[in-house]
Each structure stands twice: as structure tokens, then as C-alpha cells.
């Protein structure tokens, strides 16, 4: 009898030694109580705001040095400021590993960005200028801004300001203009 008890104890110890100390769940367990109204369809404290997202293309520089569109999600309706902010974040890790870059400096700070719906012209007001970039980088950076802004309503062109002063920016054809259009930079697109 005593030997059976010892045997039982040893078998139990052996069985326990083979188990993990924290037993996993076989299936997900439903969480009953969720605070902060996280399951609410609208954001608490707002006027029943519900944020919906859509995908928007932003233009970055591919491995060949051409401009290429890349998808980003932004709240609906897409605002120029939000899209430009996504653009300024640069390529994702995966895009970076594929050789994509951005000509826009990360230190670039957007004071304001909006599109006049009546004219279809967008205006972006930066805190610093792009003059320190090389000519090629400047062209690519302005191209990124113009082409990205065009898909959020600035179809007629884009005005770039630095601290409220409208810039006479460089075009791919060597000329300068205060209103730049997507057509001016179409030559920089890949394909």
C-alpha cells in the first residue's frame, strides 16, 4: 500500500514535470467588461464622431530615382494636411527594404495645408524651405508634394509657402513657377 502511494507520488511528479507551468487556453476567451467605451461605435466626448479610413496614394522615390505611388490609409474625408503628414513619414520599412526613399527631409514641418475646393489649388505652408536640397532632390521633393496633393483635390496645382511667403519653385524644365501643377512633374513618374 505504502509503495503504491510512493509510486503515485512519483508518477504525479513526473507528469507535472512534463507540463508547462502556465496552462494555455484551448480557445480565445471572451472579455466581459471593456472600459473606456472602447466598444462604442463613436468616440466618447465628441459629437458622435466615427473615424473612417480610406487608402490614399502618396508619392515616394523608387530605387530608380523616379516617383512612384504608395498606398497609405487616412481618415475619411482625406485632408491635405493628413496626407502630407503621411508623406513626410517617408517609406515604410518594407518599402525601405525595397529601395524606396523620400526626397523630403524629415525635419520639414507643416504649418498648414489645405485645398481651396472652389479653385482646386492646394496651399502648403512649411516652416522651413527646401532650398538646402540639391537641385535633383528639390525637383523630386516638389514632385512628391504636387502629385500627392493632386489626389486629395489640388488638381489645378499647388502653391508652396515658407512661413507664409509664396515660393518660386524649380520645375523639371528648368523654369520657376509659384503654382506648380501635376503635369509639370509627370515626367518624373516611373513607367
Amino acid at each position: 500500500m505504502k509503495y503504491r502511494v510512493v509510486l503515485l507520488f512519483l508518477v504525479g511528479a513526473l507528469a507535472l514535470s512534463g507540463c508547462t507551468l502556465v496552462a494555455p487556453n484551448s480557445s480565445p476567451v471572451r472579455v466581459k467588461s471593456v472600459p473606456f467605451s472602447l466598444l462604442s461605435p463613436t468616440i466618447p466626448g465628441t459629437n458622435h464622431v466615427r473615424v473612417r479610413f480610406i487608402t490614399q496614394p502618396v508619392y515616394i522615390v523608387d530605387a530608380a530615382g523616379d516617383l512612384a505611388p504608395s498606398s497609405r490609409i487616412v481618415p475619411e474625408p482625406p485632408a491635405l494636411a493628413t496626407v502630407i503628414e503621411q508623406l513626410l513619414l517617408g517609406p515604410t520599412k518594407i518599402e525601405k527594404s525595397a529601395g524606396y526613399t523620400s526626397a523630403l527631409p524629415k525635419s520639414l514641418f507643416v504649418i498648414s495645408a489645405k485645398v481651396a475646393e472652389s479653385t482646386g489649388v492646394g496651399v502648403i505652408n512649411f516652416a522651413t524651405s527646401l532650398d538646402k536640397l540639391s537641385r535633383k532632390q528639390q525637383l523630386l521633393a516638389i514632385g512628391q508634394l504636387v502629385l500627392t496633393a493632386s489626389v486629395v483635390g489640388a488638381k489645378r496645382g499647388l502653391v508652396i509657402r515658407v512661413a507664409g511667403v509664396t515660393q518660386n519653385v524649380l520645375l523639371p524644365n528648368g523654369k520657376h513657377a509659384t503654382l506648380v501643377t501635376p503635369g509639370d512633374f509627370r515626367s518624373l513618374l516611373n513607367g
Partner: protein
Amino acid sequence: MRQGSLRFRLLMTFGLGALILSALFAALTYVGVHHELVNDLQHTDLHESFENAELVRYTLYTSPPNLDSILNSIETATDSAVLVKTYTELSHSDGASIKDVPADTQDLVTKGEPTAQILNMDGKIMFVVGIPIPAVETQFYEVFPMNSLEKSLSTLLHNLLLGALLTSLIGIAGGLWVAQRAVRPLKRVSMAAGAIAEGNLSTRLQVTRADREVHQLTESFNQMVSQLVERLERDARFASDVSHELRSPLTTLATTASVLQQHRSELSPAGQESLDLLTADLSIFQSLVEDLLEMARSDAGAVPLVIETVPAVELVRQSVRSAARRHGLEEPPVTVTDNVGSPVIAVDRRRFERVIANLIDNAHYYAGGATDVCIDVEGDQLAINVDDAGAGVPVEERDSVFERFFRGRAAHDRGIARGTGLGLALVRDHVRAFGGTIRVLESPEGGARFQILLPYEEEALE
């Protein structure tokens, strides 16, 4: 230590008892602490996830582009991997991967069910929390490693097992101590009983300060032995008195029979036959009374033991010669082996002669006479072997032949009624009194060999 012994059983009981109790204690402690720690950690992680989900909702509402940096901040702060699936895009902290979140969890969260699950991912235990945030069309996932908890539980388990082992060892040590305490008095009783069985009736247990039960046992044992000795002495006195009272009329009867024997020729044949029978039975009766008297005196200690140190060979020769002459028997040869020098033995001379005489008588009446008396050395003892011409003593009777009034198969087979049944019992008592032993073996010629073993010394040369 044998398995069936009391000490072993006590040891096992204490050891197993300690093991079972400590194992039970360890198991209960472990289960309780395990439950508490796991629940506590899950609760903490879950609450942290809710706060992080709220932060993500706020970020997606106010500045969606900052989501990645927020997720990395969460990962750094909480050491968890965070994933956010917004619309079609998956954002995650640097250390996170969608592979960490099981498909069924993703399905449930996509359907709007907040879930939590403990998972074993390649041997690593993780706590995965999934929270839908419909206000920003997002599913939030956070994966918490539970390795620190596992480490704590592992340490706790090891400590508890070590504690159980130590407790068991202490239990065994306690069992050993108790067993020794419990067995020691029993051993003393056993030794005292053994000494009493060997004839040392003065043996008593020492009454010392001890447990009440042991004290009672000691007193009861001593009382029992005293009563036993008293009864033996009373019986011996009775036998001695009876024998003594019978001696006088027996002597008268023997004398009368002797007178009648002188006038035997004047009797009729039937009278002569009756006289012969009377004389023979009187002789047996006298021997019986003599033996009984000697035994009773010996039991009662009435006759003091007169120990002398005498040359063994000479004493044996004299005893053999004396016994043969007294009973008109042929004297058996006394041989001494070469390895025997000049041994001296400490014996009571009269009783020793009685021993030899009884052995030669026994051989004469039951085994065709003694064929040889050989003096030899057996180990560190002197062996005096009395061989006879009989068929030997069966193995099963070799101890019983020394019992009082025992009649062996040889006596029954031959229908011999000459012996008193006390001769060999007297032999054993006397040999024991000399500090020796006697046993029955088989002689080289096939008869019985009665071997007396006595302590001896070599005679000092002058």
C-alpha cells in the same frame, strides 16, 4: 535493518507521513499561488491593453500618422508587442508580428468580440489580448510575454519540492529517533528473556527513568520473572522433598530385596521371577529418585558448584574408568587427537564424572555401548566426543533428547524402560553450569556422537 522490523515500519511511517504531508502542503501552496499570480498578471495585462487601446483610438482620431511611434512607445513601456489593424493596413510595433495573433482571435475581434488567450508559442507562454475599436475601424492586439511569471512559478515549485524533500528527510530522522527510543526497551527485554532462557534466572531489567509505558513494561517483566523463579524454586523444593522422602523407604525396600536375593534359591520359580522383577524395578526407581533429587537440588541451587581447574585428559580418563567400573561395563577407549596439548578445564569434578557416566550409560542402554571417547579441539573450545554403536539420533530429535523425560525413537523401538528420562537433561544442565554446550552429531562410524564443548586453557609449563 529488515523490512519486517518495527524500526523499519516506524521509519517508513514517519518518512512517508512527512512526505505526504509536505507534498500536500506544497501542492496546495503551489496551486494557490499559481492561481493568484496568473490571475493577477492577466488582470494587469488586460487593464494595460485597455489603456493602450484607448491611446491608439485617440491617436487615430487626432494624428493617425503618429500611430507607429505610439505603438513603439507602448512596446518600450510595457515590454509587449502591439498590433493595430486599421481599415486594410496593419501597423505594429518593431517587435510584433501578426503571426503572434492566432487566426481565431483575429476572426473574433474582427466580428467585434474582445478576447484574451494564453498561448504556448514554440515553448514560450504568451498572453494575447484582442480589442475591437469600432469608433476608428480598428482592431487592437497586444501580446504579453509571460516568461517572468513562468520563472517565478518555476522558482516557487523548486523551492516547494526542496522543502518537501527536506521535510521528508527530517521526518525520517525523527522516525529513526523515535524508533530507537521505542525499540531500545524491547531489545533490553529480549536480551533479558534470552538470558533467563539460558538459565540465568537472576537476570532483571533495570528500572530507570523512562516513559510510563516502558516503566510499566519493565516492572511487569521483573515481576513476572520473580514469580516464575519463585515457582521454579517451589517446584524444585517440592521435587527435592519428595525425592528425599522417597529415599528412606526405597533404601529399606532395596535392603529387603537384597536379603531376599540371598535366599533366592529357597523361593519357588514364580517367586524368583517376581523377586528379579522387583529388584530390577527398584534399581530403576532408585536411579530415578537419585536423578530427580540431583536435578531438584541443582535447580534450587542447594548444592553449590565446586569449580576446580583440572587437567582435562586425565579427568576424562578417570571419569570413563569410574563409570565403566560402577556399572560393570566394558571401558571404551579414550583417544586424544594430535592437536590437543595439555588442556585444563574449570569444572565441578563430581558433576563432570556424572556427565560422562550418564553419556556412557545412555550409550549402553540405547545404542549398543560407547565405542570411543575422543578428546579434540573445536575452534577455541575443547571437544569431548562420546561415540556409540547405535543407529544415531534422528536430526529432529537432536535437541529434544536433552529435554526432561524425553524418550526418543530408540527407546520406543527397543521397548526399553531402563532409563529415567533425566540422564541427558542432567548432562545438559551440568555442562551449561561449566559454561559449555552439548550437542548430538553423527559419529564417523554412523552412530551418535555426543559432543561436549568446554572453554579450556593450555596448562602452564613450570
